[in-house]
């Protein structure tokens, strides 16, 4: 029992130390640019966790981040790196606005599910190209999915400046989707929406798929040893290619939720840093979805808190990015240290 306790502590210790490291370096950074570090800490925490309103902001950040992390984790379990989740996210958003503009008068009961399914379908279709290239020609999926990201950026630019362009804003952005397509809120102000519930549900389905079904078994088997999987009758190449398509569906869902739950339109640049940030929880905790969720939430807290720092203390935007990057580096360091200690 005691040994177990000390094991837990020795595993957690690097993470605690790295967290303290982040806190210290944030303080130093703030002091260097002439701000009061303790004021900074207070704002960071209160603006992300301090009130129901700020918590809801954090959760709004958490939803796409967690889904994007799942979109990366599913293929990762099959040994594939879906760095294209960003482009798939954008395609999901394109799918969502497409449904709302092509079929503007559907009742919500049909319309919203259709919008979400369209998001997943568009996201998946975007991944079919890299998946096929991987399956047929063994083209490295990292290269091909990144390339697809660039195409996605310009596709979004095309859609947001095309016929659906909203002329009232001086920015590449579409008109708003109809109110029949907007995800209902559970709490009205601020919005805590159905998006969170869909996200939790999606995570539960992913968990069930990966750990309870034969298809999920094959996914993990291919990730563990593609050659042995092949020898024992699993079509390794097909499974690993399909894993990217499956992950892409989740990324597409994230894009659709972002449109229907938060932005209500397709906007150029709406992917933010979600693609890159999502790699962190996925890579740190690939084997545990709960871990992916916790780390995603943690990152959402920092993300929300540092953007408040910009607003309240006038801290430059770059400092916020710097803090996030530091955090990621230190978490990875902690993981590396904990890993070598096991």
């Amino acid at each position, binding site marked *: 029992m005691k040994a177990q306790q000390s094991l837990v502590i020795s595993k957690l210790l690097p993470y605690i130390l790295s967290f303290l490291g982040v806190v210290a370096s944030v303080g130093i950074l703030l002091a260097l640019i002439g701000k009061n570090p303790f004021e900074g800490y207070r704002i960071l925490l209160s603006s992300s966790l301090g009130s129901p309103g700020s918590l809801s902001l954090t959760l709004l950040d958490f939803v796409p981040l967690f889904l994007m992390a799942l979109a990366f984790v599913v293929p990762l379990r099959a040994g594939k790196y879906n760095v294209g989740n960003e482009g798939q996210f954008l395609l999901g958003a394109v799918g969502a606005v497409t449904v709302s503009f092509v079929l503007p008068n559907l009742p919500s009961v049909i319309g919203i599910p259709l919008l979400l399914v369209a998001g997943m379908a568009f996201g998946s279709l975007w991944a079919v190209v890299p998946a096929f290239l991987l399956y047929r020609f063994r083209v490295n999926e990292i290269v091909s999915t990144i390339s697809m990201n660039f195409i996605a950026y310009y596709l979004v630019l095309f859609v947001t400046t095309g016929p659906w362009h909203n002329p009232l804003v001086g920015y590449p952005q579409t008109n708003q989707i109809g109110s029949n397509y907007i995800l209902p809120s559970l709490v009205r102000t601020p919005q805590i929406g159905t998006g969170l519930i869909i996200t939790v549900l999606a995570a539960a389905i992913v968990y069930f798929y990966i750990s*309870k079904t034969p298809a999920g078994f094959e996914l993990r088997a291919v990730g563990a040893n593609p*050659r042995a999987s092949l020898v024992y*009758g699993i*079509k390794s190449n097909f499974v690993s290619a399909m894993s990217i398509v499956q992950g892409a569906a989740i990324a597409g869902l994230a894009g659709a939720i972002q449109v229907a739950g938060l932005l209500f339109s397709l906007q150029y640049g709406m992917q933010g840093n979600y693609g890159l940030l999502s790699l962190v929880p996925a890579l740190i905790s690939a084997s545990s979805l709960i871990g992916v969720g916790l780390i995603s939430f943690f990152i959402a807290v920092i993300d929300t808190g540092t953007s408040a720092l910009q607003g309240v203390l006038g801290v430059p935007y770059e400092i916020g990015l710097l803090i996030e990057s530091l955090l990621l580096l230190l978490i990875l360091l902690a993981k590396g240290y904990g890993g070598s200690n096991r």
Partner: protein
Amino acid sequence: MVQDAGGSVEANEGIEESDRTANNPLVSMRSVVKRFGSILALDHVDIEIMLGEVLALLGENGAGKSTLMNILSGLYRADEGEILFEGKPIVVRSPRDAIVRGIIMVHQHFELIQNFTVLENIIIGTGSNEKGKEKSVRKEVEKLAAENNITLDLDARVKGLPVGVQQKVEILKALYRNPKILILDEPTSNLTPQEVDSMLSTIRKLAEKGYAVIFITHKVREALAVAKRITILRNGHVMGKFSSSEVTADSLVEMMMGAKPSSNLESSSHTSPPSAEPLLTLSDVRTGSSKGRITLKDINLTLNPGEILGIAGVSGNGQKELVEAIMMLRKPTHGSVRLLGVDPMRLSTKEIIELGVSYIPEDRLDDGILPSMTLYENMVLGSHDIEPFSKRWIMDRDAMIETTRDAIERYRIYPPQSEARVGVLSGGNIQKLLVGRALLSRPKVILAHNPTRGLDTRTTDLVLRNLVAQSRENGAGVLLLSEDLDELISVCDRIAVMFRGEVVGVLDRQQMDRYRIGAMMAGGATA
């Protein structure tokens, strides 16, 4: 407790003089203890090594032979005990400490550079490859080889040399480093009987030349043939020390295994109804060429119900390609296959498994296991999506664990936990897992490639018995590919010999003769 060399030299100075006299050991290892975690690998082991004789270290896999010699050669350090060299305690902290005293070990896995010539491999790392020295170095190596009756083409590339020849390159390489003690770890594994004879005579001559040779082996016959003294290890204990003239093979086996060896497997020979349709027929099967792989050339084989068909051959003569062709992992480019009444050419590997074919791959790490997954998940690989392990698209964890517990018990898999990750298992335990998995359902055809490699005698026996039972009682056909001729001869109804991708002959029981098979394995004779 390993003594500090510096402090003890003085204290032992008196002994030094008397140790110079004949018949005193060159090296004594005293009370050596070595633990790996909670496992006691060596428990107060004493051995003595004399110049000018062969000492056989006899024991099963895992008995501690290699561990003991790895301590002497500086790869491991003992937890307790001491090493006396010429009567003085020494500390061996690294292989370098051993090498400077002339202790050199030739490991079981070759460390030769495949693209270098024999000569380059022999002199590598000794500084002898400087310009201008080539001629004198070559003369030196030639002289050394001649003195020890080793014939080698010094300019041949190591790649492509038979295993027996590579083993001799390793020995000559060790001799070039001017050893007093030469440790040979299972130098006869993978050799044909002819190559074994030649190796044993080389070893005998090395001892006559005055070297101390330590011959690590699990083969009683070879130990008796070559060694003057035999030390038996079992489970990290010395079970006895004998002069080879005073013991019999039977008593050695008994001491090695701790029990009487089980009765012979041969007795249950096979009589299949001649009318029965073969389970597997290969006609003129060829495979395409791919890098580093042998191509099969016009293979014709049949496997009958209830029959064990052995495939003998030196490793790398097409055995792996043969089973892969049957599993459709490597589609034949020519010829035809008939498997369990169907043409498998258009079937996937999965469909072949579903027909009732089970496969124990040779390369257990690459082809056999999912290292990061649990024992029970590995156990069901291949039948993970059918009953009882999957019902209506959901896997049944309890069913998997129950089956795994049975296999753990039956094959004594360690650690005995279904949830343990397979990556932590030793090679022998992984092999047990693969065998357990292959015999899970009642297979109709079993392709077993080196199924007993790395197993102790008792488990080897259990595995062979299971294979025999599958064929005799359930009418399964077993294709047993093995490099161990004794194993093949003991259980097979027929043995096909492969050489460079061809079946050079098929022998039935009356024709099974070790030397004849050995000659065929070397490409020297046909049936």
